[in-house]
């Protein structure tokens, strides 16, 4: 029983962590927190189910198509909701525009896909019990994503350019980095990561339109706790949240576990608004 709490806790934790990384990837190049992060995760499950079960594609092409579709949605988000409001970042208009795009995505899915949870296929057909693939697959994908991102950011030129933009936008532009293209690329990357989260966690969460706001909230908590833009913080926060949530689920039941998570979240945030590993706020005067 403890084992199953840990297995499912780590599994959903990995999904939350991946959504957290999706937030961070978009934030890094644009300083924008986007409400679409959770929707991308939801779409990963929906597209996955659509391509495999409804259209009958094999797993690998379905995965590639899912990633491509979500990457495209990421790019569209950048063009429609982020770029127009970047000029006046201090007015926080992006909160409204990305919320609007997120709702458009969610409602479109509800109307065109289904308002009921739809099944998601078994991907590898490996393992059973607590070693079932639906538990370890998200964890494995999360670890691979982190390793991949570390490689990208540390070893490749494009990755270093991302870091430069995230570190100091003005200086990076002054150096001649194509800031706009890098931003678009990061939104595409974020779309793919979100899709990966939904695809890997599809067997747990199913292909369900209402997963969007849920993932949005639970994926935001690790970001808030770990500090904005801090991927390692997001992973640690994600796993902790997953374990806490599943334990609370088991001990006090589903509804009060979400109350417990929410209360804890608020208390921690009020105590440490910058998160556990976040940076101090900028000067104002």
């Amino acid at each position, binding site marked *: 029983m403890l084992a199953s709490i840990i297995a499912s806790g780590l599994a959903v934790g990995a999904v939350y962590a991946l959504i957290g990384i999706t937030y961070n990837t978009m934030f890094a190049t644009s300083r924008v927190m986007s409400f679409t992060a959770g929707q991308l995760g939801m779409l990963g499950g929906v597209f996955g189910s659509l391509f495999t079960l409804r259209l009958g594609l094999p797993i690998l092409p379905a995965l590639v198509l899912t990633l491509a579709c979500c990457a495209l949605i990421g790019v569209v988000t950048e063009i429609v909701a982020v770029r127009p409001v970047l000029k006046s970042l201090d007015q926080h208009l992006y*909160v409204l525009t990305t919320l609007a795009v997120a709702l458009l995505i969610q409602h479109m899915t509800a109307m065109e896909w289904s308002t009921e949870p739809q099944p998601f296929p078994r991907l590898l057909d490996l393992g059973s019990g607590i070693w079932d693939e639906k538990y370890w697959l998200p964890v494995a994908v999360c670890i691979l994503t982190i390793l991949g991102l570390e490689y990208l950011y540390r070893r490749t030129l494009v990755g270093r350019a991302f870091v430069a933009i995230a570190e100091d936008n003005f200086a990076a532009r002054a150096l001649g980095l194509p800031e706009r293209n890098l931003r678009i690329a990061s939104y595409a990357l974020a779309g793919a990561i979100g899709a990966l989260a939904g695809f890997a966690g599809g067997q747990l969460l199913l292909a369900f339109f209402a997963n969007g706001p849920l993932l949005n909230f639970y994926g935001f908590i690790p970001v808030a706790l770990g500090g904005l833009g801090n991927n390692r913080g997001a992973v640690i926060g994600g796993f902790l949240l997953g374990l806490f949530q599943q334990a609370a689920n088991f001990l006090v039941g589903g509804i009060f576990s979400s109350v417990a998570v929410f209360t804890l979240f608020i208390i921690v945030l009020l105590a440490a608004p910058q998160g556990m590993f976040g940076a101090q706020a900028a000067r104002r005067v």
Partner: protein
Amino acid sequence: MDATTGTAPPRAAAAARLAGPLRPLWPFLLLLAIGLAMPLTGNEYWGLITTRMAIYWVLVAGLNLIVGYAGQLAIGYVALLAIGAYTTSVLAAGNVLPPLPAFAALGVAGLAGAVFGVVVGLPALRLRTFYFAMTTLGFATIVTQITLAWQDVTGGGIGIAGPMLPAPFDTTWGFLYFCLGFAAICTWLTANIARSRFGRALVAVRDAEVAAEASGIHKPKLLVLVFILAGALAAMAGGLFATLQTYITPDAFTFDLSLLFFIAVLIGGRGSILGPLLGTAILTVLPEIAAPLAAWSTFLYAALLLVIVLAMPGGIAALIDPRNRRNLPENRVIGPQPAALDALLGRREVPAPLTLRGIVLAFGGVRAIDGVDLEVTPGQVHGLIGPNGSGKTTTLNVISGYYRPEAGSMAIGPAPLPAGKPQGRAGLRIARTFQTPRLIGEASVLENVMIGGTTDGRTGFAEALLALPRQRQEEREFEARARLALEAVGLAGLAEARADRLQHSELRFMEIARALMLRPAFLLLDEPAAGLSTEEIRRLGALIRGISRHGTGVLLVEHHADLIFDICDQVTVLNLGKVLAAGTPAEIRVHKEVVSAYLGA
């Protein structure tokens, strides 16, 4: 307006007083009349829709103060509607306590809403925008889940009957009239707040937070008051909503509703009451007149939200605001009036000097100020000059409390001046301007200036809510004082113009007027001459001299050496955070190191 504007006596000017949010009044009366005339149609269905519109407006009216005025993105307000609906229903049904009469239950719901309004709002006092939006969304989800789970009280998924109001409000039309009346009262109450110093302070917190602090506006206290009001209104709207529905389940409180409330404010436009009222009406009616759209209502709201933010950020209010169309006169001249300055500042007790001793402040490894001593004498102009990065503005920020020095002391006469606490400076009569003017673009110049006097407000929130005579009297005094201040700096003709339509030089004088509103003992000016023409600089110099001659100690940070040497009584020169020289302008002008470090040969 009469035709003799040019020579209008002061009384007439007061009659043309600043346009409150209920001016013009006729659109409100027209909407109310349409609502009241509904029974004539005999169509009960439209009666219900009008009732729902009135109920939604009760909530939106309060939310408008939070979203539209204070700029806090509270999205999940359906939570408070649900709390109010369930509190009223449960108390009236009597399944927990002995049943209460419907009106009493509604009152208790209002109290519960006030409490939860603060609970939902508290994160806004500490968290960044996106975080706050997220927490309000989370709160809305939690409330729905609790209503589902707490079956003994709420009936869970099965629901609970809504309260019945006693006769004559138990019919469709009776209830409509009750809701219309309640909505009208809420409109009046929130308009009273919006036009009071509290309303101006809310907008200041939204658009010019730093200037708001310098004017002595205490953001947490202000926001908590507004959260209480908005929460109470939202919960009472919930009670009425339960009556309208006759039966409520958690399904009735969907996220769509939250979105409707929120978008109604944004469609309406920030800082307006008529706009959000129209927004509420449109969004309530829209799905009704286009029935096939009902299933797509969320999609529609979301699309609307996107279009509004990107295409018309001002909302309906910007379209109907006449101040946007009226042209300002060209070739305007800023002509300060010394007589108005006399009337404004008058003769005052000369305060003790402001002294700084050994102030040290480092940012990381850089010592921005490194042992600065300074004395600002009342009635004198003290110039603070030095190359870029020498610590001039930092010194100003230490005095006005934005930075907390690591060492050193500040005092006014014998009384120590506490470090930090920028909101406390206005109370000590220390006013300031900023290098980049901090203004509320959508408010009138007059309102911008009135912000400066906020700390002198004596009447409370409740008095403002009900617009009691003492509060109205105080408002008239504020306005008169602000007009004097504008006259003194030479902007009297622009009092009614929107601040964002002013030229840069005019904004600099407007900031001085806002500072004068405080009748300051000490005035800190941060590069007031930057971007001004030679003639304007000359007038600025005369104005600053005039202010100091009324007993105010002026600390002037400036790069225009001519202005400094013209009007200063004392000059301190900073270099690399240290005092390089101090003395009279004549001494400084020939000081060898100053000449080589800063002035040039």
